[in-house]
């Protein structure tokens, strides 16, 4: 499968259809997971989905949505994973992976009744034993206009393996994206389950951070770059994952052992659980908080610690997470909250989580900011008078992790290039991995063949960081691509 040469019009329409189809498919599978197919909610989603299929059939002979090497393609045209689409993108990929399918093929004669039957079978195939029999079961259910594309067919060229074996920056970024979005989706599950059960699922949290640790232990820092995406549709979860990723990376720079990095990741993932108890209107309030609201806000560390205390056992990871919850706003100089009225210092892991939390929160796209602070502005803030709130070793580790020009920063180099920083370079904090946006002659590399600096060449260096109002670039889209 490769990017098909299309006329601009055809390509554009397929891209638009691809996004819509993906969103509808994702909504439909999500609904099917909760409701029976006879339920009105499912029926409504199915009609929407069928409507999109019909639109595509007006211009295409079939609808083939397939997954190859971390990307989804609609009839051979890659669906680009911009920030608003990432949740649906990765949820669909996860659904395919769990059922060992490479994609779905719909034929024009497909009717709602057949889609309904298909989803019954498809959802049941979450069980791996049933997944193995999915094609046979579809045939038994007389589903002829929807077919699953076996994953093996799409791996004929062994693309995935090739990417895994060759440590090319492109392959590394693909792996990082996969790990990152799986972690976001997994965190969503943890948070929702915690909401239902009153306690988080530690097993799941551990499983989510293990691949992140593996990535970072292999010095693959693309995943750190992904923390700059700031997906506001999934803020709750991306923030947790960002804090986990940044914490793990900082821990690695500080020389913590592998197991401690995993524990640190879990602490990062769970650090803000206590916010589930704060009213949404307080969290979303665009203005300054009143004294009463601050009291509420200041309770979330304790709420989180108490929630973790409900988890079974007394493992080190659980206690680290409990402590990180309680202490992540205490500050290194003990000026934060809550005040525990004791001779109590912030634990080392809590200091890391606090640093990561602060950096991610201040650069988040939040309702009370006209525009989000750039990661570079975030660093400016932390390295300014606020630095007394943080352990200097941890602050150093943050800069080592994200670089002096963190992912998402747009800067002009001494050579006159305008580049977007994509991921940090662990060997030189001043020379990140970049994507060239504008060349000195004013031309831009074609979007299909982006020009990457892995990392910024030694003969060049950052000349000036551009503020968002100096360019019209959405760095998050570049990071997500």
């Amino acid at each position, binding site marked *: 499968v490769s990017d098909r040469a299309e006329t601009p019009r055809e390509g554009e329409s397929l891209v638009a259809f691809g996004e819509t189809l993906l969103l509808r498919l994702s909504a439909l599978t999500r609904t099917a997971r909760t409701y029976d197919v006879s339920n009105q909610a499912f029926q409504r989603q199915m009609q929407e989905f069928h409507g999109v299929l019909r639109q595509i059939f007006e211009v295409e002979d079939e609808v083939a949505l397939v997954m190859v090497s971390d990307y989804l393609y609609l009839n051979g045209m890659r669906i680009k994973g911009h920030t608003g689409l990432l949740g649906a993108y990765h949820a669909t990929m*996860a659904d395919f992976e769990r059922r060992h399918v490479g994609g779905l093929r719909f034929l024009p004669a497909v009717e709602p009744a057949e889609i309904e039957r298909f989803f019954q079978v498809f959802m049941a195939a979450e069980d791996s034993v049933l997944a193995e029999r999915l094609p046979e079961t579809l045939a038994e259910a007389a589903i002829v206009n929807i077919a699953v594309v076996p994953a093996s067919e799409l791996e004929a060229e062994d693309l995935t393996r090739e990417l895994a074996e060759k440590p090319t920056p492109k392959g590394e970024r693909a792996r990082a994206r996969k790990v990152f979005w799986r972690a976001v989706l997994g965190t969503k599950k943890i948070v929702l389950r915690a909401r239902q059960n009153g306690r988080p699922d530690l097993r799941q949290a551990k*499983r989510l951070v293990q691949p992140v640790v593996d990535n970072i232990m292999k010095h693959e820092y693309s995943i750190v770059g992904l923390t700059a995406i700031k997906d506001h549709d999934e*803020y709750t979860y991306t923030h947790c994952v960002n804090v986990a990723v940044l914490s793990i990376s900082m821990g690695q720079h500080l020389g913590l052992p592998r197991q401690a990095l995993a524990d640190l990741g879990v602490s990062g993932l769970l650090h803000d659980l206590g916010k589930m108890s704060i009213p949404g209107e307080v969290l979303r309030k665009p203005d300054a908080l009143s004294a009463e609201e601050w009291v509420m806000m200041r309770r979330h560390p304790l709420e989180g610690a108490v929630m973790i205390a409900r988890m079974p056992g007394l493992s080190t990871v659980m206690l680290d997470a409990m402590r990180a919850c309680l202490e992540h706003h205490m500050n290194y100089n003990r000026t934060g909250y809550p005040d525990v009225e004791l001779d109590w210092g912030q634990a080392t892991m809590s200091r890391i989580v606090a640093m990561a939390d602060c950096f991610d929160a201040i650069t988040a796209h939040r309702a009370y900011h006209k525009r989000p602070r750039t990661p570079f502005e975030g660093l400016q803030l932390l390295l300014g008078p606020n630095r007394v709130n943080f352990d200097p070793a941890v602050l150093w580790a943050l800069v080592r992790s994200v670089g002096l020009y963190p992912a998402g920063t747009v800067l002009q180099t001494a050579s006159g290039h305008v580049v977007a920083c994509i991921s940090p370079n662990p060997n030189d904090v001043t020379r990140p991995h970049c994507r060239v946006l504008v060349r000195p002659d004013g031309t831009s590399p074609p979007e299909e063949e982006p020009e990457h600096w892995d990392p910024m060449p030694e003969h060049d260096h950052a000349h000036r960081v551009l503020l968002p109002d100096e360019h019209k670039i959405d760095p998050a889209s570049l990071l997500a691509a």
Partner: protein
Amino acid sequence: MTASARSVRAAEAESRPRELSDATVKAAGGWISQFARTLKTCRLYDAGNPTVVRFRDELGAAATALTGEHGPITYRFEADDVTCDGQSLHPARSRDDNFAYPFHRDGVRGFTLQPGVDPREVGTLVDSVLAVTGANLDADDLVTLLWEANLPHVDIDFIPAQGDVGGDPAAQGGGDPAASLLPWPEPDPDDEAKPGDAVAPATGGDRSEDWLLGGLTVEVEAAFVELDALASVEVGRFLREFTEEHLVSPIRAALAIATACLNANATDEDRQELARFLPRVLRGALSVGAWPEALESLRAIRGLRPPQWSEETFVQELMQPVSIARVVERLDEQEPDEIAAYLALSLEVGDAGLDWITLALCESQRRVTRQLLAEFIAERCRDNPERLAPWLADGRWYVVRNIVHILGWIGGPPIVGLLQVALRNPDTRVRTQVVASLSQVELRLARPLLIRALDGAEPRLFCTVLGQLSAARDPATARFVYAFTQHERFAQRSPEERRAVYAAIASVGGDELVPELEAELLKGNWFDRETEIHRHNIARCLVRIGTPTARAVLERATQSKRTPVRQAAQMALASLGGAA
């Protein structure tokens, strides 16, 4: 799996080009069967069992040999089978006999043994599988265990953790389930910056969700240079602090965190939540022998007065044999100061704490531990030894003996009644201890019990009792002891017993017994050798009684016409002279 699915799989396997030789697959199958057998053996027997040790050693050696001879071997796990190169190696025989199941259930889809695999790595693999096939409701899954084990020559292929959201009853109309559930921040589209909006610079001094921020600095590069210059020192300091923190036991850490939470303006609701957490800390502390932490936890729990906490249930838990065994195991490896902490905890437990330490005393295998526990019990019961009375009815002889021993330390009149009960114990070892403990009681009070202890006593105890009875003259006792000499089977007693009887007569007897002793001295005939020995012993008794009357009897006997009588008296008096 259905038969058709199996046949499909078999057909697929046949059509796929083979990469490994038959010999390799056969060897791989042999190893996996050995693995399965080892697991079964490990589940049946203790870890120290010689068969278990041998099986594990052989499995590790076999893995090294297998990979050394055939190179890397990859096993794949399906729901009910283990395969290698597409060949079925170990299909499930039943639901309960499914080797592949725990791997597949936890998401492990395969592993590759690489050349150089160490038997210790294989051992860890075995331990991990055992851990997830036991009662591990809240423990880690196999993927996490193997990830944490970080085995260099065992590559694990696992599926990622499921990252979907399902089963959310709150989600309506297929919308985002999170939206209706979470009060976490959601972006307000109206407030988001539009492309054409005037951009307000993000200056400091405002809040960012839960962070209050100060002003900016512009020189990021310069600030970092400054940080970087100090990094080696600061990172070193950070790592030292990290190491020190992680030297603290989880129990101590849990308790400290709970205490900090309680001090963080905790509401009543928080306090109740933490009151549910603290019993776990308490139990954890008890299981590892962290007595000071257990004491602190118990006090904290009592301070919170949680409704679900029951002292009675807690005490019942403490008294369970398995709990006692664990406590004793810890105590028997602890230093005296740690045992002292345990004793302090027992005081906090209250009255039942005494029974708790008594049970520990009964089970302890170490002398130092027993000594410290017993001394503490004695001290605690000094004013009320009756508190130990229930233990005297215990069916285990060693328990009763320990209690009798402690009663001996307490001593005094109050223990006499208790020792009287213990004296009825059928076990000689208990009765021997009773006699020993009676030495701590005034003889006047102990005498009736000692005399009763002579009944049916084995020789050693018999001698001991007589020894104790000999501590002071007592006419009644003297007659009682003398009566032994008149028993028809007295001569059949052991020499030690007979010696003890004569010694006792000499010690406790007085003038009141002299007439009987004189008669004994004079009786007998020429041919009875046993009588002569008895005569000599009686003469010696008279010498030791030593009163003028007794001496007069002996003087008269020296004038006897019967040579044996005369000789006995003369020798006895001579011994007196010699002694003088």
